[in-house]
């Protein structure tokens, strides 16, 4: 057989296959499209454009989420084949004392972080709202930390907390003749130490939202109250806070989710011993990261992710329920 003939034999099925898989469906679609009415064509175009974000969400969001649930029922080290594990990953999780410590840590971030940050943010916003002098400048100053990257901020604070020759806080203490504090090297002080910059970072955003909420309250209520001679505390308690409820609900849910998912501050402030000392600062997200990308136990990490998902869901639902309407 000549070489030329052989080539032809190879080429013809290849061309045919391309036609069958790509060309033919396109041709079919185009001839179908041509016979539509203008109205139908408009619908087709609408769906064509809608399909892009839809497809994006399905591929980038929903598929991985569903896959994480599926993965949590398997053992997989990324290299070998997935092995069916049933509920064993969840059983292992329930029996792991580290998990319960981490679970409690995560709630500590939530229970300390959300109320403290909201009270501080509200106080600042409440008084800032009454200030006219350099109002914009002060507001910008409060917002600045929110614009800073968490990594840079965490590292600066990490150095603040160092022992004597380096750390600012301990140097000040030493100058005043007070004993050094271990901060990040203590199982009891480490979590609040990590939380402080995280609260500080989110403060600017909360202040801005509170300010917008305060501005949205109609002045007529305040005027009426003043005419009646009501005290400032009563105005705050009976008018301002109740009318701020939508703002508070939004901030509580938003910051709760943020604190439940805290990661970058903890990771960057404790890189040498992530989540340490003795897991005292380790949140759930860090445990997931460690299990997945240091331990390569993907199934176990997925099980932890499922737990985090459920926690976030339940906490958000409870908060919406309690805070929305009564």
């Amino acid at each position: 057989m000549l070489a030329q003939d052989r080539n032809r034999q190879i080429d013809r099925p290849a061309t045919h296959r391309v036609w069958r898989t790509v060309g033919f469906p396109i041709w079919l679609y185009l001839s179908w499209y041509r016979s539509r009415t203008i109205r139908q064509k408009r619908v087709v175009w609408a769906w064509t454009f809608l399909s892009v974000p839809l497809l994006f969400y399905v591929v980038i969001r929903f598929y991985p989420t569903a896959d994480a649930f599926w993965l949590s029922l398997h053992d997989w080290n990324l290299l070998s084949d997935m092995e069916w594990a049933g509920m064993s990953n969840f059983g292992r999780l329930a029996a792991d004392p580290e998990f319960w410590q981490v679970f409690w840590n995560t709630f500590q971030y939530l229970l300390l972080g959300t109320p403290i940050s909201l009270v501080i943010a509200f106080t600042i916003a409440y008084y800032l709202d009454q200030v006219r002098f350099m109002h914009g400048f002060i507001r910008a100053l409060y917002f600045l930390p929110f614009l800073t990257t968490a990594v840079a901020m965490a590292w600066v604070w990490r150095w603040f907390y160092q022992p004597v020759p380096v750390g600012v806080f301990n140097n000040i203490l030493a100058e005043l003749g007070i004993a050094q504090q271990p901060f990040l090297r203590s199982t009891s002080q480490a979590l609040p130490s990590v939380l402080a910059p995280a609260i500080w970072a989110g403060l600017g955003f909360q202040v801005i939202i509170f300010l917008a909420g305060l501005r949205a309250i109609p002045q007529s209520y305040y005027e009426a109250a003043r005419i009646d001679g009501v005290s400032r505390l009563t105005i705050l308690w009976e008018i301002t806070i109740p009318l701020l409820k939508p703002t508070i609900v939004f901030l509580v849910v938003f910051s709760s989710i943020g604190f439940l998912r805290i990661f970058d501050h903890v990771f960057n402030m404790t890189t040498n011993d992530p989540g340490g000392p003795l897991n005292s600062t380790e949140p759930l997200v860090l445990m997931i990261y460690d299990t997945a990308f240091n331990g390569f136990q993907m199934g176990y990490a997925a099980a932890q992710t499922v737990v985090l998902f459920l926690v976030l869901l339940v906490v958000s639902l409870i908060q919406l329920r309690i805070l929305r309407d009564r």
Partner: protein
Amino acid sequence: MQTARPLLLGALAGLAMGGAAGTANAVEIEYWQYFFEARVNAMDQLIEQFEAANPDITVVHRHFPYADYRTRVAAAIPAGEGPDVVQLFYGWLNDYVDAELIQPLPTDVFEPAQIEADFFPMVQAMRRDDAYFALPTAVRSLALFYNERLFEAAGLDPDAPPQTLEELVSYAEQIAETDGAGNLTTVGITMGMTAQDHHWFREILVRQFGGEPYADDYRTVTYNSEAGQAALDFYVSLMTEHEVSQIGFMDEPQAAFRAGRAGMHIDGSFRIGALERTRGLPWRVAELPAGPDGIRSNFASYWVNAITTKADAERYDAAVRFMEFVTSPEAMDLWLEVVGELPARTEAALTDENTNDPVFGPFIRGLEYAHATKFANESDQRGEMMAMVDRIVLEDQSVEDSLAQAAEAEQAILDQYYE
């Protein structure tokens, strides 16, 4: 539309045919490693030499950030993509063999008996049954870095670094400085299981106090013994009893040493490059001090190269030739010069020039009695070492209890992995 269709089809058909027709004489193989500047430079130079000697082979060198290196390799090879020759950490070998990412090296070229005669003994961890699966170009070991200026300031002779653990403590005591409130401002020796100290404890201190850290090919933890307790006692006493060190001092041990605030610091040969770039730091290197009975020990680790299961036919032959080249003594000399990592062949390493080198010498002498721990999960196993010391220092747990707890926890990690 009528004219667009034939054009489109023509283009697609052309694409399909182009794929079938593209076979050339030259073989192209791909080499993958993670990004570490000195190593990437060294490999570029090696590839240049290799291609000059083998004009029919082209080596494409690709590197990735360490953070996603493992993930990329794992995804690429089963898909028939990616490297023909791949770099991996010695501790990953089991995973790679089990997942069929790499194939054995041909025994006619890489004869096991010959390898065992030529390479340092810790390389034997790369052997499975009758064949080697991977070989290193270079190995790394630990040594004692010390600051000449602080030695002199404390009235110590910089030409006579500590030879025993006892001397180490007494030197550290003379170097350490405190402020008026008793806070350390200069440490005698750095401390922290986060850095290399967990290797120092497991493979060196435990052995020097008469114990064995592991048995059963690193599947059973055995350091929960009297020797282990003595070793841990010694380690913790640097901070608690002798007060010559502090965990977390200046954030990281190597940072304290580079800042000139630490008299001594145990670290690996990979630190040499960073120290050379530190201006005004008069650093020197000594062999790790010997134990109470004169026992010396060291920890070694290494990165290896292996041929992946993707390499077949002529690409396999090319990969074998490339492997031969990167494990040759010449490649090792270049690697030592460019990266500062030590040759994996005894002959290339133990030259007079190398062993008498003031910087490389102590590391190379350490290789002769070094052990390479087989980790199941290095970061978790290190985590148990950190927790062990933290429980003693932060929570006043006894050395005995904390050691027992650490041994149990590490055994659980090993069991989970080998089950």
